[in-house]
């Protein structure tokens, strides 16, 4: 009661942003305390889309549980599945064929591209420009078609299985990806014309949502959020999996720590992903696409941790096995969860419009946070 009176006296305005709000990209609920237009505090309330995937996985076998992880970060479904497959493979100690590795890396990078395209459109829409969203989806649609042709689904593919991938590549895959590369290279300058160069957009991004390198590391931010603060943290570089140590790509780093830096990092990541795809698309080795595995997978007793770089940051899959058919405990360290925890720090003292921009550049995917 006293607190309420105190709040009334200070003139705080408390607003619920979400769970149904156009810019929270899902069912995120933020309670923001305002002083006029200035944000004093942001308090996320999570769980509106919590499905307890971790608990569900405890009753699913090692082949079955992978499909459910596509539903966490649905924009990088391939990469989520990849992380799970890697953890299971670590437990089984199997080597996967080179062709499967190449396919996995290709799919990962295409997914990253698709995810960043959606992010770009959604960010522009958050700051008020609606047209870029459609332009982003035009290219994303091409990628989705490629995915559909090879994996059989557009969003939740469940294509990576322990030991490799589920099917071989579609015969058209190579030519269509090459077409996509030419197309996307011609469209990227349009992205810059429409959004990057725009003076209003730059002003909305610059000096907004600053987070220093120390704070970002302390908050456990990963991916473009941390790279925007100038800390190198790409799992593909630091703990390479599959073929990433043999590939040529650079990790974009910006030192600004603000939304603009995060924006530039993601734009550069798109180019780098394109570069990786270009390196691999002509060099897909012949061979098996799946290693021979037993019909029923059993992991030895122990703990297995795999880390991959999703479009949003580091995804960790922690499997505790008791030697049974199902995982004893599984924990997904999702990138969005940690990135969200820094939201309050970034948004304090900024305007309401900035909160939207910050959420946009954090690229929050709510199912990834709630799991």
């Amino acid at each position: 009661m006293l607190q309420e009176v105190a709040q009334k006296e200070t003139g705080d305005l408390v607003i619920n942003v979400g769970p149904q709000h156009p810019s929270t990209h899902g069912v995120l609920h933020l309670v923001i305390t305002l002083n006029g237009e200035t944000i004093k505090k942001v308090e996320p309330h999570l769980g509106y889309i919590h499905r307890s995937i971790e608990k569900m996985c405890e009753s699913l076998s090692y082949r079955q549980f992978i499909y459910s992880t596509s539903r966490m970060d649905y924009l990088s479904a391939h990469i989520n599945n990849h992380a799970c497959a890697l953890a299971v493979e670590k437990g089984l100690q199997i080597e996967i064929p080179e062709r499967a590795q190449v396919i996995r890396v290709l799919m990962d990078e295409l997914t990253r591209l698709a995810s960043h395209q959606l992010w770009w459109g959604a960010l522009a829409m958050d700051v008020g420009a609606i047209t870029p969203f459609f332009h982003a989806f035009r290219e994303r649609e091409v990628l989705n078609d490629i995915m559909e042709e090879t994996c059989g689904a557009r969003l939740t593919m469940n294509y990576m299985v322990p030991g490799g991938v589920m099917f071989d590549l579609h015969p058209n895959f190579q030519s269509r990806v090459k077409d996509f590369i030419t197309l996307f290279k011609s469209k990227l300058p349009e992205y810059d014309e429409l959004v990057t160069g725009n003076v209003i957009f730059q002003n909305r991004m610059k000096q907004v949502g600053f987070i220093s390198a120390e704070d970002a590391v302390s908050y456990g931010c990963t991916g473009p959020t941390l790279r925007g603060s100038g800390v190198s943290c790409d799992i593909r570089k630091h703990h390479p999996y599959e073929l990433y140590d043999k590939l040529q790509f650079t990790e974009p780093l910006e030192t600004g720590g603000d939304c603009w830096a995060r924006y530039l990092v993601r734009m550069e990541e798109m180019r780098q992903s394109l570069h990786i795809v270009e390196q691999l698309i002509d060099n897909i080795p012949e061979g098996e696409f799946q290693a021979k595995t037993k019909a029923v997978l059993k992991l030895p007793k122990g703990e297995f941790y795999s880390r991959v770089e999703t479009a949003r940051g580091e995804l960790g899959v922690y499997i505790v096995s008791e030697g049974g058919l199902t995982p004893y405990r599984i924990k997904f360290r999702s990138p969005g969860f940690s990135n969200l925890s820094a939201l309050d720090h970034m948004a304090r003292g900024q305007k309401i419009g900035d909160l939207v921009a910050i959420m946009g550049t954090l690229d929050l995917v709510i199912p990834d946070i709630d799991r």
Partner: protein
Amino acid sequence: MEFSLSAIANQVDTWLHANCASWLALTIEFVIVGLLCIALFAVLGLVLIMMERKVSAYMQLRLGPNRVGPKGMFQTLADTLKLLVKEGLTPNGADKFLFNLAPFIVMIAAMLVLAPIGFAKDFVIWDINIGVLYISAISSIGVIGILMAGWASNNKYSLLGAMRSGAQIVSYELSAGLSILTIVIFTQDMSMGQIVASQADGWWIWKGHIPVIISFIIFLIAVTAETNRAPFDLAEAESELTAGFHTEYSGMKFALFFLAEYVNIFIVCAVGATLFLGGWMPLHIGNWADFNRIMDYIPSSVWFFGKTFFLIFVIMWFRWTFPRLRIDQLLNLEWKYLLPISMFNLLLATFIAIQGWYL
């Protein structure tokens, strides 16, 4: 015999005066004008919303509405019908009187500004001799309706949207007024009819040198802000405040707000066309007598609506290209850029006018 709205108006006027007492004729004329205004509003709403949808669709690589009627032409009609039969909710904690009054205030303010605008040659409701002043005075009444709506909704989003709108319109009124003043300096008259008449030998945008071009750009920016259109749609800001001041409105009351937005766009663009692009004056080029005669054959109302719709298209083009500004940037733009530039521009215009460097 060319098509002329003023001829029709004169015929009606003579007929009425011949057949009725003069007071009755005046009353009937009032009623006719009122009905025409409302009809214009309804038609404008349908046309402009359709236009906005098509413009946005083509810019966004879409087709836009294409199912209801030929090429989707009746889509807005169907939407209006839907809004008409929809339940108009009033939130529990709302101030009922103000809540219901607000959309009408916005609407009436938009309607009043129509008075001094010349739609065609000699076709104007009331060519008041301080027309420019009247327009800038009345057009700022609309914000009261918005503030009322935001406050009466008893919703924090609405309140924030309304406060933003208030700050915005108060600021941008300044530079809109100053850019209009440039034209007033050149014409030395505040009546809209006189301003149009002064452009018989060339529109101000052609013969007004640099100051008019600058003030035209400033005018476009300022009126975009005044009508709460993107990139200055902070009062609505659907990604921040869901729908701003009309979050709680539904049904017909929402439709009134929606309609008022488009009517306001029409009005400011009509004012812009009158001041800078010569109103209903046809395009004349120097002494190309043949060309000028052809241009004269086009009815003056077509010229007026053509210019107005061109400006409306430009404002829609803004909306579907640009991101939204933040509230402090919005005020910065006004106070740090537009206002100093338009003040300097005013000085320049005065200097040019004194020197008589225009035609």
